[in-house]
């Protein structure tokens, strides 16, 4: 079984976001493997353990992404491919175009990824890749029973969950489910150092920048208004509760 996992490196959840001109400042934040992709890697490793086979992790980004790829290798993946997009301004179309082209050159029975990335939360790259490659996609998978030629998965849908069967090859995107991603083992870390990590550019997969040019353009970034000083809502319980409900709706606009 050839398994390919699409992986993204993201800012960690505690990152304090600041702006550098009209861009997000990337200084002073920890970079981690997208947590949903950790689930995808774990799922991939479990499939590999069941069938034997090979897990390849593919990502788009600069050299810093090697850290996250190495984590996947240390967890037990076999190979990593990192494509440098050669540009800062990319969108999901760019990323999907690159990933699909890179994956298109590999053998695969199943494609996996996190259903969303915690940074931009756009939930579309895996779907786009599946569309380009012409394989069916099932999103928000919480459990997967994979057989030789099909997968039966449980996934979240609006208002509940569904059990869906797809023929392989297929793309499954992982939602947090019952499986916990493993930590790399010490031995895994040592072995990972010898595993192949292919670093390539667009030219190596036969793409030029124009073909992968973004469709969406970020016009401006801003930070949400700083937190105002907290206020105590006075009055008897009935009065205070009523006023609080009003404030939540009209002032905080959170309900």
């Amino acid at each position, binding site marked *: 079984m050839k398994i390919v996992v699409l992986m993204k490196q993201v800012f960690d959840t505690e990152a304090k976001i600041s702006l550098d001109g009209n861009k997000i400042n990337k200084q002073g934040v920890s970079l981690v493997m997208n947590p949903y992709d950790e689930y995808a890697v774990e799922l991939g490793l479990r499939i590999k353990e069941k069938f034997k086979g090979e897990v390849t992790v593919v990502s788009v980004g600069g050299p810093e992404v090697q850290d996250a790829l190495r984590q996947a290798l240390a967890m037990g993946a076999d190979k990593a491919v990192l494509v440098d997009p050669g540009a800062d301004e990319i969108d999901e179309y760019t990323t999907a175009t690159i990933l699909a082209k890179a994956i298109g050159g590999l053998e695969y029975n199943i494609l996996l990824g996190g259903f969303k990335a915690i940074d931009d939360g756009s*939930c579309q790259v895996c779907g*786009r890749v599946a569309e380009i490659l012409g394989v069916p996609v099932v999103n928000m998978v919480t459990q997967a029973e994979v057989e030789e030629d099909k997968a039966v998965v449980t996934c979240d849908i609006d208002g509940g969950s569904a*059990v869906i069967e797809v023929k392989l090859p297929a793309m499954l995107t992982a939602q947090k489910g019952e499986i916990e991603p493993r930590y790399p083992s010490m031995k895994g870390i040592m072995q990972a150092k010898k595993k192949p990590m292919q670093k390539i550019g667009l030219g190596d997969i036969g793409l030029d920048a124009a073909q992968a040019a973004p*469709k969406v353009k970020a016009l401006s970034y801003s930070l949400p208004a700083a937190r105002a000083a*907290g206020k*105590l809502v006075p009055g008897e319980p009935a009065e205070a509760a009523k006023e609080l409900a009003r404030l939540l709706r009209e002032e905080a606009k959170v309900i």
Partner: protein
Amino acid sequence: MAKGIWVFTEQRDGEIKKVTYELLSAGRKVADSLGEELCAVLLGKGVSGLEGKLGEYGADKVYTVDSEALENYTTDAYTNILADLAKEHQPTAILLACSASGRDVAAQVAQRLGTGLMTDCTDMALEDGQLVFTRPVYAGKAIVKAACPEARPVMATIRPNVLAADAPQAGRAAQAVPVGGNTGDIRQVIKDIVKQISTRPELTEADIIVSGGRGIKGPENFALLEELADVLGAAVGASRAAVDAGWKSHSFQVGQTGKTVSPVLYIACGISGAIQHLAGMSSSKCIVAVNKDPEANIFKVADYGIVGDLFDVVPLLKEELKKLLA
């Protein structure tokens, strides 16, 4: 000539979701400014007849595909039909709800049409003739305004409850356009569908969390918080003290030694605010604290606080919110 602002109708079991009306109301204004028509796309089984409703909220035209094969959402069927319709009519924009199915179909269709897609948007505006979408990124810690300058249609998924739905205009009709629609080969075969009995979201995924601490006094009293949570569609959380007391399992624990959360609204009831708890929730957008002790640390991070007995305040708050959300 690309033309038309399209709204993809979010319906479940023949019931149109409120977000569709929100999208139609906002889409109406954009369509008027651009001098284009507002169209709804309505897919499902037994949905013919719902066009009138969509017309009342502003749709000029409704493309309806009513088919047995569309009873349940499947990626392939919905993608094939929506993409075919869009290819045929070349709309300017397609707006969808940011729901599981909305997100799912939007990504596939955007790729098939070779266009851009902005997801999880909280606002939409026409700026210099260009549709500009606002979306929170980095868990709401930054906001980006984005547009799709050239490719058409512009596609976006928009969160429910962020745009206002206008009042329906009784009797305003939309032109119903029944379409055959070819679902194509549906590769996702549905074996089973389980409707959730509880609609409470998972803690780390929830937009609203109602959390209880030692002040709850006993496991039975969590029912109070659950009732409040259900009014808000919120998840229920607990402090370490409440978990340690055995009132809730560890999976409910919010805090540095449990789950780190950053919902839009966090309501802390009877939680004193130990540093480990604060570290796990203080990035929430809005924090409400209800506690008897005016010196409790939780008030230091709270946007709104009520010093009082949660057993008095929480039921009253639930009733007030129920009225507001009705």
